[in-house]
């Protein structure tokens, strides 16, 4: 029963908390840059404002354009239910396979890219083409690096991976884990469209990746996309925290108290990661577009080396 409760808890945490995480990150950046900032709740206020607006779809767009926000948000919610954030003991445990999770995240990205293409505008196409370039390197890296982690554990099930890491924390110091951690951190930044890959705060339409794809969205659709993007960022950070700092995640048999502690721990971990990311961004600049494949190829290489190391360094 705690499994179901845990799942509900972590979906709620992600759904409600992710805009807050974005708010925290913006606030950190603002303070570090010497600005007052808009406050933690601003992303939620923005979402509320957008929800009240009229839904507008550009002329000539089809069902792909209308379905994409739903797909994006839907996949994010499913992943939120499956990934071991609060508990490793999910009733959806069979789905919590790393391949399934990666595929779900990719599905959301692809839906958005298709929607960008569906608008038929130059910017939608440009954003989609750039997003797919990034995606083509990000997804294999995620797969390969989690695969590397799965070799010592002997399973690709995320829950088991986390449980195994929690049981033997010394293995976290191995080159396999470190290489995979670096690779996953880089692609998480790329996947969530942060500096140095993409600038979430830009108004320069020619440099955008994520923002260019969603340039034609307005009102509730835009709200859904913004919310889903925040959830994806939260999930990626949560996954990172779970894989490389698994302490505190409730395993089978943890009671209600265990779940509560696990929830607090995960909130702390994700917040710390988010703050670190935001603080890092302040001192970072955006890479030239042609340098991004280099960065991603580098992360892919690390993932591959992690796999190689997991074979020979045992």
């Amino acid at each position, binding site marked *: 029963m705690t499994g179901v409760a845990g799942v509900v808890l972590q979906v709620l945490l992600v759904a409600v908390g992710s805009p807050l995480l974005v708010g925290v990150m913006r606030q950190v950046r603002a303070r570090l840059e010497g600005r007052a900032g808009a406050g933690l709740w601003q992303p939620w206020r923005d979402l509320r404002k957008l929800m009240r607006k009229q839904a507008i779809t550009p002329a000539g767009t089809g069902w792909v354009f209308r379905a994409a926000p739903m797909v994006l948000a839907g996949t994010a919610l499913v992943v939120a239910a499956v990934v071991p954030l609060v508990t490793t003991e999910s009733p959806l445990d069979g789905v919590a396979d790393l391949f399934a999770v990666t595929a779900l995240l990719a599905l959301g990205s692809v839906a958005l890219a298709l929607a960008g293409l569906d608008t038929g505008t130059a910017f939608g196409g440009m954003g989609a083409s750039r997003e797919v370039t990034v995606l083509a390197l990000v997804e294999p890296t995620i797969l390969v690096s989690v695969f590397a982690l799965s070799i010592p554990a002997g399973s690709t099930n995320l829950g088991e991976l986390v449980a195994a890491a929690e049981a033997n924390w*010394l293995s976290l*110091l*191995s*080159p396999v884990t*470190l*290489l995979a951690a670096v690779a996953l951190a880089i692609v998480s930044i790329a996947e969530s469209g942060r500096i140095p890959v993409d600038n979430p705060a830009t108004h320069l339409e020619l440099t955008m990746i994520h923002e260019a794809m969603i340039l034609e969205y307005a009102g509730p659709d835009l709200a859904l996309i913004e919310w889903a993007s925040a959830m994806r960022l939260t999930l990626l950070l949560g996954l990172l925290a779970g894989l490389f700092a698994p302490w505190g995640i409730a395993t089978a048999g943890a009671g209600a108290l265990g779940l509560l502690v696990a929830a607090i721990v995960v909130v702390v971990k994700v917040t710390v990661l988010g703050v670190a990311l935001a603080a890092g961004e302040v001192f970072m600049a955006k890479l030239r577009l042609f340098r991004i*494949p*280099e960065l991603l*190829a*580098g992360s*892919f*290489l*690390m993932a*591959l*080396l992690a796999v*190689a*190391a997991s*074979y*020979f*360094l*045992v």
Partner: protein
Amino acid sequence: MPDLTYTELLYLACGAFLLTGVMVLWRRDLRAVIRLFALQGLALAAVIGVLAAHQGDLELALVGIGVGALRAGLLPYLMARALAAGGEDRETRPLVNVSASLVVAAALAMLAYAISRPLTELAPSPATRAVPVALTVLLVGFFVLVTRRRALSQVVGFLLMDNAITATAFLTTSGVPLVVELGVSLDVLLAILVLYVLTNRIRASFGGTDLDELRELHD
């Protein structure tokens, strides 16, 4: 030293050794490349140090300190001086672009794994299992040497190979006989000095260290 910790530490050092080697392919900034090389020298010294601690071998530990001083201290210092004198601090146009180089490096890692099978099988131990790491760095160093155009990048490629050979020597046999060891170190040092002198001479006669300029001799 308990065995588990020995293995973990050895692999951690080997991981650092590998990572610094591969990162050289990634960076264009030659100063960063030199820093990475110095870090790799430290990682190599750490590998030797861990081996020495495991075997309780004082002589090996001293050799490790010597290797560290040479490869993390003297050589990077020399290269940094050459760089400061030249004023060109970026690898502008490698023959193979960086993304492709990184993918090639992944393939090289697989190749290294394949060719080091006989070594691991002859004497399976934590140390010999790490030989593929050294061989990967060897191949990466060779790749850097072949595809980079700045004189200094080529020197770094050569030194990566040399680091890798040293690492292999220590991982497989805890080092070759001392006489040979000394001779090898001396030779490497001299080779670097020769290259250092030549780098300056290239700059004097070609006005830069972009080796694309070296095109006078051909058939």
